[in-house]
């Protein structure tokens, strides 16, 4: 299993940890605040995931974005 985490901070107080987890061919994306509140969670395909991560990483309001890719235990 693989996981991708995008740390996203913007000028408008938006601070999210966006983690995508692979479940076979499907992925789950989850956005959590620094306080641990889950703001969104949904299932998606790999192409959709890549588009979504790009949407966050290239967002016009983004101030800091950092990505971490790691392998996790199955």
């Amino acid at each position, binding site marked *: 299993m693989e996981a991708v985490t995008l740390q996203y901070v913007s000028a*408008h107080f938006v601070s999210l940890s966006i983690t995508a987890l692979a479940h076979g061919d499907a992925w789950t994306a989850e*956005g959590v*605040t620094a306080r641990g509140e889950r*703001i969104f969670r949904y299932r998606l395909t790999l192409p959709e995931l890549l588009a*979504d991560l790009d*949407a966050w990483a290239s967002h016009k*309001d983004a101030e800091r974005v950092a990505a971490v890719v790691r392998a996790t235990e199955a």
Partner: protein
Amino acid sequence: MIALAQGLRVAGIDPGKTVGLCVYDSAAGKVTDAAQYRSVAETVEHCRRLLQSGMCDAFAIERPRIYSHGGNELADTIEQFGALWHAIGGRAPLPAETQQLQGGVYRVDVQGWDFVRPLYAIERRAVTRELSREMGEDVRGDAGVWAVLVELHGGRGVADRRAVKGSEPGVLGLLHGLPHARAALAVAWAAAQIETGQTDA
């Protein structure tokens, strides 16, 4: 808390691809202003006009929590909320500076140049919870929310631009043809209910 003897005029905002805005006067049970915009900048400008003209006592923004889809629109909507929260007077991310009144309801006092106003962040679940409590039944979905708001304000005809030819518009008549402003009414109505409950308590 501000005095509510005259009721509360709440500017509700529904962020999204199209931003809905609606000012609801809880004492009169009437919408006094409504608009839709395609940008945060236009929405903020409208809010500034409301403040300058003393047309509202409180602001309430729907806080997005979305569990069905992502994409550019999700990122934009979350950013819009943050931008509006900041522009209207919030000084830190939720929930750092706020009081969480109940699940999905956050409140902070923001200092204007004339007096302090409450600023609410309200999640959809809290809006439907307030409506469900008022109606004594489960209220769901955009259509369900709108139907209940119409019923609470007098039923059929209240959302007509002209109830009868030549007569005054219905109390929700300003929302005619503005679906996103209708969603903003739900936010404003819920904030007025919660604020009044806080003051009465």
